[in-house]
């Protein structure tokens, strides 16, 4: 067991930090620390230009194999990149879903033609992706997909009908990966397909969902005879569940350490406020600040164990606790922020409903324990998969 990084890794860290210092400036200065969770709707054009700047520097898709334009970065290098990116205030990545979810899935399951068609746009920071998993009636129940895909022999295209929800950045995305039922006679995990659907077509309609923050980070996406070329199904019809699950497996990983840097920024801000307004002298607040600090440190140690032990996208026991851990921690941090702000917590920045960073965080953390699998679902997963307890029975609906 060792905590330190190798000399080569430390040199890599210097290189990343230097590049960010040289580039995340000038026209990009004002988007530092912006565009994170709960703030994804801001400065989208600037953040797209930033994606391209990153790509020019060779800093997109560093984990990809070199054959696809990546650096085949080690876990350590990915950790370092994410840490330095967050430390420098790197803005929320518009290309995140393409780079970390769609790319690896294409590399694992795609045909050479599919890889050639889609990977370069992601790598260049020019083509963005959004997700089409959740449906209004399904929530955490991905097996209950109602969106249908029918192959039209006449046009040799798939026709997709249905509705997806909780789709970030749908307006900005060129493509959406959509899980849809290809075999109407199957239920649950069977008879699904995984489609790569172009967003810029008549059959696709986007409706923003306004959140409790007054902003709209998420969208509903309606597919109304949307078309998808025969070649744009990833894996075979019926294989959709396997592809979809593999993609979710990529969600956990090195990006967690970058996320923790954002959390650290938030905690630092809370400590700054506490010291300024004197709540840092309140013993109960002190206990909670210490608890938050301990929790964040431990989150980091959990990640380090998870990354040291992880084989590829395989889930291990430690990884299963990760979502429940961070979402609960972050929700508590939101409450702490409000209590530290004192009387000012209730007063917004400006009319009509402009929240400051901590207020926005407070409200948005209520979503953290819901999206990507509620805390209840997470506890089921831990109990059933890590501890081997009986599965929840499925009802007969």
């Amino acid at each position: 067991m060792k905590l330190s990084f190798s000399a080569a890794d430390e040199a890599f860290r210097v290189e990343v930090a230097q590049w960010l210092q040289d580039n995340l400036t000038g026209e990009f200065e004002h988007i530092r620390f912006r565009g994170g969770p709960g703030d994804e709707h801001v400065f989208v054009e600037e953040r797209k230009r930033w994606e391209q700047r990153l790509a020019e520097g060779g800093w997109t898709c560093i984990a990809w194999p070199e054959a696809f334009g990546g650096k085949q970065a080690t876990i350590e290098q990915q950790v370092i990149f994410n840490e330095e990116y967050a430390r420098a205030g790197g803005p929320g990545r518009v290309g995140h879903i393409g780079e970390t979810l769609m790319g690896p899935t294409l590399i694992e399951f795609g045909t050479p033609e599919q890889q050639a068609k889609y990977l370069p746009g992601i790598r260049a920071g020019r083509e963005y992706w959004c997700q089409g998993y959740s449906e209004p009636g399904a929530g955490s129940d991905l097996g209950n997909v109602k969106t249908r895909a029918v192959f039209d022999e006449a046009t040799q295209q798939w026709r997709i009908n249905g509705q997806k929800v909780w789709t970030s950045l749908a307006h900005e995305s060129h493509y959406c990966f959509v899980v849809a039922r290809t075999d109407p006679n199957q239920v649950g995990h069977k008879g699904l397909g995984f489609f790569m659907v172009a967003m810029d077509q008549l059959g696709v309609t986007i409706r923003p969902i306004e959140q409790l923050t007054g902003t709209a980070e998420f969208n509903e996406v309606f597919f109304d005879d949307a078309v998808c070329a025969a070649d744009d199904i990833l894996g075979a019809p019926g294989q959709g569940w396997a592809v979809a699950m593999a993609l979710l497996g990529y969600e956990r990983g090195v990006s967690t350490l970058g996320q923790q840097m954002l959390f650290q920024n938030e905690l630092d801000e809370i400590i700054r406020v506490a010291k300024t307004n004197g709540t840092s002298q309140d013993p109960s607040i002190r206990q909670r600040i210490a608890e938050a600090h301990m929790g964040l440190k431990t989150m980091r140690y959990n990640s380090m164990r998870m990354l040291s032990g992880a084989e590829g996208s395989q889930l291990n026991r430690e990884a299963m606790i990760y979502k429940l851990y961070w979402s609960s921690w972050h929700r508590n941090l939101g409450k702490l922020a409000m209590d530290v702000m004192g009387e000012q917590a209730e007063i917004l920045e400006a009319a009509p409903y402009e929240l400051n960073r901590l207020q926005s965080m407070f409200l948005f953390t209520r979503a953290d324990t819901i999206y990507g699998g509620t805390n209840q679902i997470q506890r089921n997963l831990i109990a059933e998969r890590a501890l081997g307890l009986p599965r929840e029975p499925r009802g007969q609906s």
Partner: protein
Amino acid sequence: MEFRFTEEQLMIQDMAASFVDEVSTSEAVRAAMLSDKGYDEETWQRITQELCWQALTIDEEAGGLGLGYVELVALLEQAGRKLLCSPFFGTACLALSALKQCPVSPAKQTAIEAILAGQTATLVHTDSAGRWDDSAQLPCIKSGALEGIASHVVNGDSAEWLVVAARENDALVLLLVSPACPQVKRRALTTMDQTRRLGGIQFNQLPLEAAHRLCEGELAERILAACLELARIGAAADMVGVAQQALDSSVGYIQERVQFGRTIASFQAVKHKCADVMLKLESSRSSLYYAACIADEYLANHASMAALQEAASIANAYASEAAFFAAGVGIQLHGGVGITSEYDIQLYFKRARALEAYLGLPHWHRERLASMLLEGDVA
């Protein structure tokens, strides 16, 4: 000992429930939130003219109904349950609680009559940072004029009468001020919870006359201290209502919502969350009703300030935690839609949070109770 509502009190509660169900619908709340004064003028007219809520705690000889905090709490709980946007809390629970305790004076007479007639009022007891404790730098009286800023004043942007706590040299003075003059500037604050409007008020060399004075010195200190306790009890009532509706709407939603082929209400983890909410809610309600009884006893000189403080802290701290927990669980049980602005549960969450922080967070109340228990006397 009869620790339950009388028939009359149940009737008051039922009428209030029907009324808020009618006027404080989701659409009405959302319209009021965005309106100029933060409440619907017509609804206020009905409250004061049809229902006479403002007269509830005014003595019968002064033209009121002569009822007490038990009845007031019954109304406030219903108001909270439907997120009623109204100057009722400021008028009845803040201004009137102060006025009732003041000695007879022309100012008191003026104010009570105005309130009976349906005018709005509030209590101004904060400083420019919204502080309300001993550290507050209240507006000051110097050379016969009032100067200073008070922030976070409940309905302070629109109340027609202000009962103002001010300092004159070292003494506290309670004043009755009409804000309709150029020396008083006011604005609505933009708040996270939009169902309870707060205002900022600036007094700019407002000349005072003897007729403005309600009382001063130790009496004023005692009255103001009691007012804060009564406000905490009133806020607890609102929060019990908030918690009740957060639970009820969640219980409704989970029985409709199907996941994995079952209503989510059939999952034990979901059921147990609801049970935990009910435990906290009913316990809050018990401590609220107790505090309301103590409030009436205090106002009748049958209970001490220490008893009032203790009851207020218990009721407020319990209700704060119950409401925040109930609304937070409510969002969680609503799942994805819980965090959309379309559903009301987030409005309950914001109101719960605002009220929780109003006049002391739960840990502030616990520390105050600890001092009473460990260093001083507790009732």
